[in-house]
């Protein structure tokens, strides 16, 4: 039995420590569990293999800290996953060694996304990151020297205490490494997290001063020859299409299968989330059963709204026929007059200023 899903996400939850701002499913320490967890992942893969197309386009190993996974277990996983044109692994700088780089290459990894976040030691401390700025640079060179020709850096801006000069310095440092791809996120202080508790008030005080950091990031990166292809993502412009193919699949509304604790899948109009509890996950797969999951059926209207929300994050116009019924026409006219959207009757796109206000524009557009 073969299916049609061509994008596979694999979640590796293990981390050495938890960063205050993070709200992903993570598990601390527990090195002894890496082997059994990989075994469970492979068991889940077997259970779900019927959904996958014979040839995958992308595989993405996210976390957690995938590169913290015990080396033998990580290699076994990489060897057992179906091959794909793009295989990305997320890496934390302090975990990158020449040996790891070799193992990733040997396992078919084509792209590494390095969580730099910032190059300022005191800001790394605020984020509770373990790496030093030197770790980031060293890790990048290690991967480059091992032969990776598609490297991405994650940057975070809007960190409590981050000055304008700090932001410029981060962009300088990132550009100096000349990565193929950059993801730049504004720090999200989610309500209820330890981080928000500690820094929320400070962030509110700085909100006005940091208001144009986003614009500055876009200006600097596009000025340096990068394409702002998604709200928070940039790739070096040129003949090679260096966009993240895996993430592009999400933004284009393609089906994807997620494996591992807390992983989300969307296949044929149904979304499900696997249990975020490690014990429940290991237990079920140990018995050869599918892990517990939460189902969310997506009706056609929800899918249209998502199509609109995701499509408008990209720099390419969105075909109107796919989302027309999700759109409030009068809102569209208003936004058009405000110079935030461009609508040629067949496609809909955001203007530059519209992209900076993408969330509000989308909310406004929703019928």
């Amino acid at each position, binding site marked *: 039995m073969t299916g049609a899903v061509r994008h596979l996400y694999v979640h590796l939850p293990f981390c050495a420590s938890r960063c205050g701002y993070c709200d992903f499913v993570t598990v601390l320490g527990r090195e002894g569990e890496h082997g059994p967890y990989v075994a469970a992942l492979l068991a889940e893969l077997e259970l779900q293999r019927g959904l996958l197309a014979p040839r995958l386009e992308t595989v993405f190993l996210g976390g957690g800290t995938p590169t913290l996974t015990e080396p033998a277990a990580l290699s076994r996983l990489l060897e057992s996953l179906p091959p794909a044109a793009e295989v990305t692994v997320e890496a934390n700088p302090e975990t990158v060694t020449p040996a790891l780089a070799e193992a990733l290459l040997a396992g078919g990894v084509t792209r590494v996304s390095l969580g730099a976040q910032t190059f300022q030691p005191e800001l790394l401390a605020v984020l509770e990151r373990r790496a030093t700025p030197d770790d980031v640079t060293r890790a990048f060179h290690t991967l480059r020297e091992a032969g990776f020709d598609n490297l991405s850096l994650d940057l975070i801006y809007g960190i409590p205490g981050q000055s304008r000069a700090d932001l410029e310095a981060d962009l300088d440092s990132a550009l100096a490494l000349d990565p193929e791809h950059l993801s730049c996120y504004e720090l999200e202080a989610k309500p209820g997290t330890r981080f928000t508790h500690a820094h929320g008030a400070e962030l509110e005080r700085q909100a006005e001063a940091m208001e144009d950091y986003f614009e500055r990031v876009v200006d600097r990166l596009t000025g340096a020859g990068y394409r702002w292809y998604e709200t928070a993502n940039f790739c070096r412009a040129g003949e090679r299409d260096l966009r993240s193919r895996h993430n592009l699949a999400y933004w284009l509304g393609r089906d994807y299968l997620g494996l591992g604790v807390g992983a989300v899948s969307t296949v044929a109009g149904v979304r499900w989330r696997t249990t975020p509890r490690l014990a429940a996950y290991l237990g079920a797969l140990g018995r050869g059963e599918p892990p517990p999951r939460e189902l969310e059926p997506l009706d056609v209207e929800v899918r249209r709204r998502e199509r609109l929300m995701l499509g408008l994050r990209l720099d390419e116009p969105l075909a109107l026929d796919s989302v027309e019924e999700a759109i409030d026409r009068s809102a569209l006219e208003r936004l058009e007059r405000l110079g935030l959207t461009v609508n040629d009757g067949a496609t809909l796109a955001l203007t530059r200023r519209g992209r*900076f206000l993408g969330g*509000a524009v989308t909310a406004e557009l929703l019928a």
Partner: protein
Amino acid sequence: MGQDQIRNFSIIAHIDHGKSTLADRILQLTDSVSEREMRDQLLDSMELERERGITIKAQAVRVRWKGHELNLIDTPGHVDFTYEVSRSLQACEGALLVVDAAQGIEAQTLANAYLAIENNLEIIPILNKIDLPQADPDAVATEVADLLGGDPAEVIRISAKTGQGVEEVLDAIVERIPAPAGDPDGPPRALIFDSSYDQYRGVVAFVRVVDGSFSTRDRVRTMATRTEFEAEELGFMAPARTPTGRLEAGEVGYVITGLKDVSRLRVGDTLTLQDRPAAEPLPGYKDVKPMVFAGLFPTDSDDYPELRDALEKLKLNDGALFYEPETSQALGFGFRCGFLGLLHMEIVRERLEREFDLDLLVTAPNVAYRVKPPHGDWVEVHTPSDMPNEYEQVEEPYIHASIIVPKEYVGTVMELNNDRRGRFDHMEYLSEERVHLTYELPLAEVVLDYYDQLKSRTRGYASFDYDLAGFRPGTLVRVDVLVGGEPVDALSLVIHRGNAYDRGKLLVEKLRQEIPRQMFDVPIQAAIGSRIIARETVKARRKDVLAKCYGGDITRKRKLLEKQKKGKKRMKQVGGVEVPQEAFLAVLNLNEDKK
């Protein structure tokens, strides 16, 4: 029973000085209510009245004491209902003036005492709460005696709570209050001092027969409004309705009219018989007009029919309430409502929200203006946005304000009154410590937050009362507010020309804080006619994106946007600008901020 056995009286007192407790004690002592029936403060029957400790609707109860028929006519206890109080007093020959032995005379006590004196009533001064440790009966008795020009020894000292002295009060009513002295054989005349609506029997009038008599089935006419009806039932309250078939000169009772519209029977009007009409109505009838107006809009525009029905029902029992449909560009469909005063407005609003479960947006209140447009006739304007920019003359209502404060606050009260365009009238010492000030003030300066300001600047010691002094010429302008270049009708205000710049500036500043940043710059302007007098800008947001969005959190992000969309729908759109409902109340707090 002959008129010489009848005594008609009211109790007048400041809020909380013990009027209702004394009334309850009187009912108990005269065996009018059994212990089992006894609810504390029986006369205040509406839930809201009981909660606020005030009496809104007057009622009348008949009791017997030592061979006499005593009619206790209750009076509304608040400044907004001065006219109704005066009509209740007109129905009596005497009044008990109850003063708290610890608090002393308050502005409201004075106002009502003067009303009683104007109506030639015999006043029996009473000190209540003499059992309280902080009571100072001798000092307060002197204050009261000075006010009434009597002897402190004549002041009866009681505790309505324990019942001490209440029998003495009943005896004094019989001994000191004169019997009614109408003409029992003359053409019938009865004063309407209150009315209520019974859902089965229609409008019920509460009356004091002055001359002649009325019987069941009589054809009755009101002399001012010329409403005609047949008296379906006559009787008195004891305290339940007790039919008698006949009400004679001097008596107090009720008449069931069968009328379906409470506004056809006005308090202060005179009843007479169609086939034996009196020549002259009883004096003092006034057509009370609402002086304070505000727009009432349902928060959810779907609730408009419910609001309309609720107002219709309230109006049945509240002849003073006025309403007419109003359409605001900003707030949609609602009603412009007229009230006697601020408390009346507050009561109506609370009843609508509580009894009818409505969620309301009430605009800042304004007063009625009289305007003479160029070459036109005088018109009354109830909505600021209806005020013409050009006029020959404009008049605004003024009040006589009566304020009692400890002497150390006289300066601060004078300062407040000067800020509010007050004209000093009179000042006198009630005692060594307490001063009575009278002022003339534009009602418009009082409706927003005057009372709060007065209370906060005198640490709660000031007491305040007012009555209308009539319309006076004013120098007034209409200030419009433009949001995103479009005038917002619900934010227009009429103010004294001298304050226009200051208030306009404060208002746009306040609105800048209330209106959330949009996707474009939003200018907020205050204008007189086409002249902009103040301007602020709500700067456009520079960014509003969901930082990241990958496979794992598409659902959450979608829900965030859907929620954001819902939030937008709740806001009122003014020229493409989302204005939260709170912004429409910005004008209410302008003065607070200034201080």
